[in-house]
């Protein structure tokens, strides 16, 4: 493989790296705090365009044999995470100033891209760590709140535990097969000896932890709540996407056998049911989304039960719709001086009367996440359960669907709070302008700033496209 092809196949990563270097340089020079966001958005948009272009030209290549490869499905996955990063960056404008957040976000994105393309456990570990480390710091960026330190610490410790389990599993696999390539995992899946099984279980548990699957989910609600809104959006969508893409990569083209089938069906099943039940009583949107994302992780692990070629398509489509809708919900949250109060359901009470646009957007996101047609969340869920049923797991599919039914209630509760309770227009609820100094412009009371609106519009257009022409999107995956 010649140098230019090697360069081309990592073009999105190179563009991200360029952005990171620029951001760091600007920090060192101490200038351009105003331009940091712009640089980051341009870098991510350029990387996304590069991924899109490579995707359209059906590019595939192996720049580092056995470590890193690029093909159609990995390019689509990169395109999705890069696209989702743009609205997340835009909405961060009201939370963070300066270059720390964009630089951390881009680094984490680089890690996600590595993870998506990894061919060996080494690259995968590199990707996982590069993805996670900046996120620990990003959670801590909301340090004005006490909860954020606790959240970051919990996330760090449990993330570390996951990495340790992953490494332990990989070394066992290496001991058994003498290879660190991800195909060793397939060998391990088919083997019946105790060590191979232990290796597979350890790796799978690491991903359960990272993906917040019950009973390894306890960190998620605290971490999501302790972080500020854009960071939560990032964790709930892009980090989760990275983890899921890695899992699908491991399971691609491997026929599932008995103990593993139960492992990837029962824990996700409990996740679906428990996530949806626990979400009912949560007082804030972030905690609710955390539990809902626990349930959604369950659906995505369910997709592994489906037949080989359908897995990637189902998970990709699911992550796209789920990501777009989560970002939409977070971007449409009206700003508030007090970050902790911003997304409490009490604050959202009667939002329709104060800010109809935001209320309708959050409403669309909630209904779609609940999987009610005609919103795109339905098509995504349909695709997963279709594959599970087609693979013959009728009982799991039916119980999973009933679990997803439980979830409808708490999504409707958000709508009920926003639309059906009278708006309390008192001084306590409509907070004054944010007290944190804002670098540019200002936002109106209970209104959305221009950047947040741009983020909302991007997500809304994607939602509409997914809703009207799901067939086109599916054909492209």
């Amino acid at each position: 493989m010649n140098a230019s092809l090697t360069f081309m196949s990592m073009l999105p990563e190179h563009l991200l790296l360029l952005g990171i270097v620029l951001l760091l340089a600007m920090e060192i020079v101490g200038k351009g705090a105003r331009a940091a966001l712009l640089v980051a958005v341009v870098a991510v948009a350029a990387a996304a365009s590069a991924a899109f272009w490579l995707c359209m030209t059906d590019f595939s290549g192996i720049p580092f044999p056995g470590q890193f490869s690029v093909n159609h499905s990995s390019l689509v996955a990169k395109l999705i995470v890069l696209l989702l990063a743009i609205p997340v960056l835009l909405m961060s404008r009201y939370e963070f100033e300066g270059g720390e957040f964009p630089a951390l976000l881009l680094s984490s994105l680089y890690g996600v891209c590595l993870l998506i393309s990894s061919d060996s456990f080494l690259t995968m570990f590199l990707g996982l760590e590069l993805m996670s480390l900046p996120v620990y710091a990003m959670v801590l960026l909301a340090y004005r709140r006490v909860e954020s330190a606790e959240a970051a610490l919990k996330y760090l410790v449990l993330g570390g535990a996951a990495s340790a389990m992953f490494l332990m599993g990989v070394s066992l696999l290496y001991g058994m097969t003498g290879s660190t390539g991800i195909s060793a995992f397939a060998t391990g899946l088919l083997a019946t000896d105790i060590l191979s099984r232990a290796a597979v279980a350890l790796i799978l548990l690491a991903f359960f932890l990272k993906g917040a699957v019950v009973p390894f989910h306890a960190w998620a609600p605290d971490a999501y709540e302790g972080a500020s809104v854009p960071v939560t959006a990032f964790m709930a969508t892009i980090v989760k996407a990275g983890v899921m893409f890695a899992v699908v990569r491991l399971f691609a083209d491997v026929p599932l056998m008995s103990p593993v089938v139960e492992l990837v069906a029962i824990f996700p099943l409990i996740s679906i049911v428990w996530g949806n039940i626990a979400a009912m009583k949560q007082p804030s949107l972030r905690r609710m989304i955390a539990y809902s994302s626990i349930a959604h992780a369950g659906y995505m692990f369910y997709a592994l039960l489906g037949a080989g070629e359908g897995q990637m398509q189902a998970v990709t489509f699911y992550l796209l719709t789920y990501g777009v809708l989560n970002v939409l919900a977070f971007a449409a949250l009206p700003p508030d001086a007090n970050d902790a109060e911003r997304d409490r359901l009490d604050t959202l009470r009667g939002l329709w009367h104060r800010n109809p646009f935001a209320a309708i957007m959050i409403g669309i996101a909630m209904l779609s996440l609940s999987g009610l047609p005609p919103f795109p969340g339905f098509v995504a869920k349909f695709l997963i359960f279709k594959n599970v049923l087609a693979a013959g797991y009728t009982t799991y599919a039916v119980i999973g669907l009933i679990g997803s039914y439980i979830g409808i209630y708490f999504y409707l509760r958000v709508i009920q709070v926003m639309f059906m309770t009278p708006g309390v227009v008192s001084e306590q609820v409509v907070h004054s302008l944010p007290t944190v100094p804002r670098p540019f412009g200002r936002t109106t009371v209970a209104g959305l700033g221009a950047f947040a609106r741009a983020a909302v519009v991007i997500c809304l257009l994607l939602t509409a496209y997914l809703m009207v022409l799901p067939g086109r999107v599916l054909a492209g995956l």
Partner: protein
Amino acid sequence: MADTLSTVLNVVLFLPLLGMGLLVLIPSDKPQITRRFTLLMLLVQLALTAWLYRQFSNNTAALQFETRIPWIGQWGVFYHIGLDGFNVLLVLLTAFLAPLVVAGSFNAIQKDVKLFYAMVFLIQFAMMGTFVAQDLFLFYVFWEAMLIPMFLMIGIWGGERRIYATIKFVLYTAFGSILMLAAMIYLVYSLQGSAGITSFAFSDLYKAGLPLHAQELLLGAFALSFAIKVPVFPFHTWLPDAHVEAPTPGSVILAGVMLKMGTYGFMKLGFPLFPDATQLYTPLLMTLAVISVVYGACLALVQTDIKKIIAYSSISHLGYVMLGLLSLDIVGIQGAIVQMVSHGLVAAGLFLMVGMIYERCHTRELAAYGGLAKVLPVYSVFFMVLTLASVGLPTTSGFTGEFLVLLGAYRAAWAQHLAGSSYALVLASIAVTGVVLGALYMLRFALGFLWGAERVPHGPVSDLNRRERLILGILVVSIFALGLFPDSAMQKSEMAAKQYQQLVKTSRLQAARSPATDSLLQPAAASRTGALRIISRQSGRP
């Protein structure tokens, strides 16, 4: 011509969506313009639907005015709509009631007017779509899409316990739907296994041959979903709550059209898709239908809330529809179809009248009223006419529907009795008591309401104004028209009734493709290759 007409059907379907889009342009502080604009859009929709209805040919069981475009190609999902004898009357009913609902809500809705009419448009779109859809996936999407605007309509503009009622409504209906979803996927995969095609088209699914135990489970899932919507005893408890808490237009839409989706679902999908299971479970289903008739009527007899009386009477009247469909007698099926339309008109009229009195007197307690005949003579005349139509007095549409259903049920039951099984005869006989009970509760209602000592809460009140008289006048005329001249309506649905009868009677247990169903579905296939719009029919079937 056929092409123009299928375009018109698309316009009829999407006009409400266009209306909702245009609504955004009207300023929020101009509620009157919003109301008139909505009314105008829905009148246009009605005019176009009436034109389609006139052009609809009675002589074929095939789909007419068909559109078929691939939507999600890989799964064999098509945007496939068309009119046939099953849905043509219900489409007309949907288009007919909508302008009346809007005109009837001119005074009732004062809060968030724009959002309200946006919801009316959305519901109208979803209901139209559910009726015209000829693809199971599309049907399911429209079927569920209806929930959300109704959820908001009850929840925002409803009465005191609106939140409880609306969440109950959604959770009940969604539970049925989730099982239907699983059944739907299973059905499509069985078809793929047996016939080798991946298709959600109704006409293809009718060919799917399934083993009996699979049919039983799938019928169970579909029937649960439809039975909750109808509602059939014991799945009816959401209905009184939803009706009582819903604003008047919500109640009218709910009773007028939405409940018919359940019976339409049974007629178009539930029974014909799983004929063997249907045959097996007919005694059970018929028993539930008869319990609905009698139990609904008994409950209506003891209610003190006037909206609840009409809500329970709906359960009773729709029990007849189920009975007619299950009788598998051509007269009974025709009667069921007429009864659906008739109940749509009568229940809509009664809920509108309750809304009108509620706007004036602010209470729904039956005991609070009395002697309205003296105070509100015009109102009382209309009320009496609608009451008698609900009771089923000859010359009104209520009579035609119930009479034909009972006639059909008896004919089928007698034949079975001669063949040695008498359960149907017993059930049909019990169902007749529903007519007597119906007279009892409606006349008790009218007696307390219109006669006796004069009691008018928050009086003195004015009689009906011109707008209200016009709305009720149109409804009463249509009720008599359907009662006196049911022929034209019945001719429209005759072929469909025969097709339904044959589909349910033909066992598809053994062979995936039996000659009988194939010949039955021939006309549909023939018309498809004809002048109608077909775009790459094969593309979705790898």
